[in-house]
């Protein structure tokens, strides 16, 4: 039996998270509800899906809901096999989905519970996540779900290297590295802002300062050849 699964649930083999509150508007997700409840109660089976929707970009991301940052839908997380009842309760609240990964749902594959799962770590995550405010939960959801498109990244890599043979793992790795780099930039920019005692959205000057500092720390690869002719 095939069921679509939210990739966001994927990484939850190692991290226990409280189930999502946010509504879901797609049929695939609605059909997940009974299935998920079933799966959650299954013994050692866990739904294992890549949390970064890495593998699912190939299916072609379709529509992205543009209203995410300003959407009023509550954030959504799916639980692992541990929190069956919570999962069922929360999923019932799903109405509309506000993030990209929904379109990239793939068939759920049942796999053994990964050995990297740490019960104490999961319990800690669960404890923390249950205490999140709406705002925090929405931000955390964005953090987990957001990813650079593999197709775009592959196109970029092809244009850079000139070689057509960019393997899927390579694309996945570069997307992951780039996402972490964005994280470093944004976090450092926030630090710069607090130093300057400014508030509000991040401005380009903060990003530039953050980038300069990252370069000083050596986290940005330096060009061996000067970049001319921009």
């Amino acid at each position, binding site marked *: 039996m095939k069921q679509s699964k939210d990739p966001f649930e994927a990484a939850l083999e190692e991290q226990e998270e409280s189930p999502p509150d946010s509504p879901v508007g797609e049929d695939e997700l609605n059909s997940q509800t009974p299935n998920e409840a079933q799966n959650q109660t299954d013994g050692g089976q866990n739904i294992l899906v890549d949390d970064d929707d890495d593998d699912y970009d190939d299916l072609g991301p379709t529509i992205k809901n543009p209203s995410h940052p300003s959407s009023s839908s509550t954030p959504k997380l799916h639980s692992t096999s541990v929190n069956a009842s919570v999962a069922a309760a929360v999923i019932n609240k799903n109405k509309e989905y506000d993030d990209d990964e929904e379109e990239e749902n793939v068939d759920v594959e049942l796999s053994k519970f990964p050995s990297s799962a740490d019960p104490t770590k999961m319990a800690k995550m669960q404890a923390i996540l249950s205490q999140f405010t709406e705002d925090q939960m929405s931000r955390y959801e964005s953090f987990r779900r957001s990813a650079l498109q593999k197709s775009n990244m592959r196109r970029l890599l092809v244009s850079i290297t000139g070689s057509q043979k960019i393997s899927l793992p390579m694309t996945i790795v570069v997307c992951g*590295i780039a996402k972490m780099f964005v994280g470093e930039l944004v976090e450092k920019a926030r630090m710069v802002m607090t130093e300057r005692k400014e508030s509000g959205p991040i401005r380009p000057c903060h990003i530039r300062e953050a980038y300069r500092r990252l370069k000083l720390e050596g986290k940005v690869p330096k060009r061996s050849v000067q970049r001319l002719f921009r």
Partner: protein
Amino acid sequence: MSNPSPGTSSKAKVGSSQPSETSFKRKRGVFQKDLQHMMYGFGDDANPLPETVTLVEDIVVEYVTDLAHKAQDIGSKRGKLSVEDFLYLIRKDMPKLNRCTELLSMQEELKQARKAFEVDEEKLATLE
């Protein structure tokens, strides 16, 4: 007209009939939508400023470009570009390295799971 944002090597998309794979012009705003969500997740405002998103995209593209060029340099010694080259480049950066190994192992698991799933399906089909 001078290009206001530094570090930009992309040009505006020309209305040509060139296929994007062979064209060397880079469209602006390739990662815009994803980057907005991502920046919000990492601590920015719910609605990041568009100029900030553009700047971050430029920086990321430049970062990936530099990374890919370095990886190519390393990979050319071996013959072709591989994932190992990228992993070698970020070896000093523990969080990134751990994350990448985690992503790769998850991808492997998924592949195995998918294969197992297909086998099961076949069995079901043959049973009926």
